[in-house]
């Protein structure tokens, strides 16, 4: 299993909470950007990929024509013959019928829609440029156009948000027929406008936690399984591309700021659009090559995010060798006896009560 991530670093306007690499008002480079991505893709020769994910930024800003050029180019550069899932992130305001049809035609079969909330007040306070109505319409359109899986992102902890408004957002979304929701607790990332001047009505961490737990219970009642810390899906509708991240699989990221994990090595492209347009093949930095023991810890940390699947002693031992996982399994055992993890003897999972306080557990898992 190998995933391909393509970063589209364009936005109409940056949202208040966003710390991803995206540049408002650089859309004029879109054409040459698509060519640069294809050039970079050739570096990975005939590697085969089972999932593709167009993320951003705002991939839907590319427009129908350039989207087709991009996908066609990638198909030539790489082996995408065994593609099982092709996701595109879509923002409500640019989710035109023309674009979505083009995406379907190009072979995209999953849409992840940046809804965030269905309260216009909350959307505004987060610096989103679309309305609730536009968001519902975009989701409905994607479902109608036959995207096999449609997902929506929601944020918990937006300024002014209440349980009522959050529940209304979820209910309206579920009515459209979507089967996947990503629900993120808002975090104030360093350097973002929201972190610099947080509005007074921002829910506290405690209030966020309550909202999130209420949301989780609500979604469980509607048949959506809480399968990863921030992700809920009808069984069988989990995002394959993201599952691969959490199972510590291989992936290639194309574009500035995109990260890759191949042959045990992690690295990311420098976040510099101009340099990338100049030469997309020589921007790898933050290269990290871990030894087997650290790699095993990292994998356990990632897999524990998967709340149902967790991490198995068998798969760790098989992948890293008995010698490299002894200490780790010892730690997992101890943490189980301390109630931080739950185990059936073969696998370890995070108990539901610790999902929102999982950082200390992960830190412990990593402390080889």
């Amino acid at each position, binding site marked *: 299993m190998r*995933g391909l*991530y393509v970063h589209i670093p364009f936005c109409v306007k940056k949202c208040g909470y966003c710390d991803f690499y995206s540049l408002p008002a650089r859309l004029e480079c879109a054409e040459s950007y698509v060519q640069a991505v294809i050039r970079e893709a050739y570096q990975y020769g005939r590697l085969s990929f089972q999932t593709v994910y167009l993320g951003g930024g705002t991939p839907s800003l590319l427009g129908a024509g350039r989207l087709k050029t991009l996908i066609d180019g990638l198909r030539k550069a790489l082996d995408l013959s065994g593609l099982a899932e092709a996701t595109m992130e879509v923002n409500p305001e640019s989710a035109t019928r023309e674009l979505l049809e083009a995406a379907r035609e190009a072979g995209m079969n999953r849409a992840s829609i940046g809804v965030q909330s269905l309260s216009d007040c909350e959307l505004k306070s987060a610096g989103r440029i679309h309305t609730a109505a536009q968001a519902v319409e975009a989701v409905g359109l994607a479902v109608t156009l036959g995207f096999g899986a449609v997902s929506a992102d929601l944020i918990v902890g937006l300024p002014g948000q209440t349980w009522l408004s959050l529940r209304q957002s979820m209910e309206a979304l579920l009515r459209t027929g979507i089967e996947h929701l990503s629900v*993120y*607790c808002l*975090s104030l990332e360093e350097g973002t406008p929201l972190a610099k001047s947080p509005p007074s009505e921002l829910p506290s*961490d*405690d209030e*966020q*936690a*309550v909202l*999130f737990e209420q949301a989780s219970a609500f979604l469980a009642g509607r048949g959506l399984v809480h399968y990863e*810390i*921030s992700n809920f899906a009808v069984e069988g509708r989990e995002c394959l591309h*993201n599952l691969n*991240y*959490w199972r510590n699989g291989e*992936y290639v*990221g194309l574009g500035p*700021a*995109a*990260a*890759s*994990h191949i042959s045990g090595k*992690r690295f*990311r492209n420098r976040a510099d659009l101009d340099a990338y347009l100049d030469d997309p093949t020589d921007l790898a930095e*933050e290269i*990290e090559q871990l030894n087997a023991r650290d790699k095993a810890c*990292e994998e356990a*940390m*990632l897999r524990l*995010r998967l709340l149902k699947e967790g991490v198995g002693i068998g798969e760790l031992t098989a992948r890293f060798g008995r010698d490299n996982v002894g200490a780790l399994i010892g730690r997992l055992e101890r943490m189980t006896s301390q109630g931080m993890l739950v185990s059936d003897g073969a696998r370890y999972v995070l108990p539901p009560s610790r*999902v*929102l*306080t*999982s*950082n*200390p557990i*992960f*830190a*412990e898992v*990593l*402390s080889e």
Partner: protein
Amino acid sequence: MDNVRNFCIIAHIDHGKSTLADRILELTGTIHTLSNEQVLDSMDLERERGITIKAKSVRMPYQSGSGEKYLLNLIDTPGHVDFNYEVSRSLRACEGAVLLVDASQGVEAQTIANAYLAIDAGLEIIPVINKIDLAGAMIDDCLLQLDDMLGLPGEDALLISAKDGTGVPELLEAIVARVPPPTGSADEPLKCLIFDSYYDSYRGVIPHIRLFSGSLRPGDKFMVKSTSKVFDVVEVGYFLPQATPCEKLVAGEVGYVGATVKDIGDVRVGDTIISPDHPETPEIPGFRRSQPMVFCGVYPISTNEYGKLKTALEKFQLNDSSIVYEKETSAALGHGYRLGFLGMLHMEITLERLKREYGQELVATMPSVVYKVFTTQGEVMMIDNPSKFPAVQNIDHVEEPLIRARIIVPSELIGPCMELSDAKRGTLIGMEHPDRRRVLLTYDFPFAEMVTGYYDKLKSVTRGYASMDYEVAGYRRGDLVKVDILVKDNQVDALSFISIRDGAVPKARVLVHKLRKLIPRHLFEIPLQAAIGGRVVVREDIAPIRKDVIAKCYGGDITRKKKLLEKQKEGKKRMKMVGSVEVPQEAFLLLQKLEE
């Protein structure tokens, strides 16, 4: 020997001692170019705090106006109230003292204290008014104060500006003319005072010495009077200011002796060095042993560094024999040491230096004075650690140490100063008017009030204009209670404190509140309690944390989020475990800041 002059410069802090030392070094050609760096203050910390902590000496050749050649030895002295002991030690190595007074400030509390020490040591005092170039110089006032407050005739004083050099050549002439040459003979049996020392990792302990009689040369043997241990002299020399070996040192001179002393306990500052052929040679008298006044516990952050701390303290004591330490075990903090200091500044500086010079991560507990506890069984216990207080029912009464403080304050600020002193349980002993602008107040205070920041407060209510000095003044009975702090039902011995009964609960309330702000939220609720004699008087709870999660972790986040988790984990390593609660080190310093 007739042409040797051993002298020191004594002054209130910031009256220009280091600048004058630099100017003298320059004038005598000891150093040629001078940056702004102050030569004698070699420790970073000294420069930062503007005080000279460790005594050092420099030898300077000098040709007087009459053509006569002299050797001047400048012995540096510390200038803060805490360091009286080190001052007196340095003074013992001199025959004369330059008493420096800032013309714009006048005689200050430490000017008086240092002058008294010099007079007691029988030194020839040369009063010098410095900074006469300043617009605000009040030379006549200063001369008057010298006469009134210290009995030093104004006509004996020299007027200088160390900064631009005015009057400094005349000062050198005065030193030669007025400071008596050392007495004692090179032919008599060896007798030297160790007035300082430093540790050289290659050559061992290097004592700084003043020879009172006899001589010392490589190949000689010497005996340390207090231990009768004998060592071979490998090298003798003096400071220019860098260490410079010489053929021999003779009576009257100041220098160092290298003797492969490896055990730092063998050569103590303040000891007398004599000849093994004359073991009957008496000790140098009048050498005051300092009494530690403030104690605190010092613990390594990680328990396995206890050995490193021990070595560091051993080395430290070599450079500063006024520090005392002994093993201590705290239920909350593990194994550590209880350290005794001369005063608060001494403590702060020592802890900083321990951390810096020896690379030790330390937790220092709140400082305590030494209480005299009279038990119902009729015993008297000296208690320097609140957690060692006997149970309430076993205490008959408690006495606390007093100091007598001399405070000089501008007349218009006498109100706030007296108000503060009253709030700090001061008893006014006397009030004098040394000149028309200022008042000299004498107060008795419980020393514990100094520990909780009286001096800083005084500085702030008088906008920095007050100066203070103090001396120990016995014990006085007080209505004192011990307050215990419990973190999730575990009593934290390192947070116990002694307070007068009236102020105990308000203090406990502030402490518990600050602890609540400081201790991070855990996954469980943490009750914080303060108790007096087993009765809970204050309680606050730290609510359990609800959210500590990385919501987004996708391909691009993995390495960064992992680093975030590792950083979180690192932060925890700097905490001390109290039962199951991680307590930041700062918590143990809170008590000092209770009154801010």
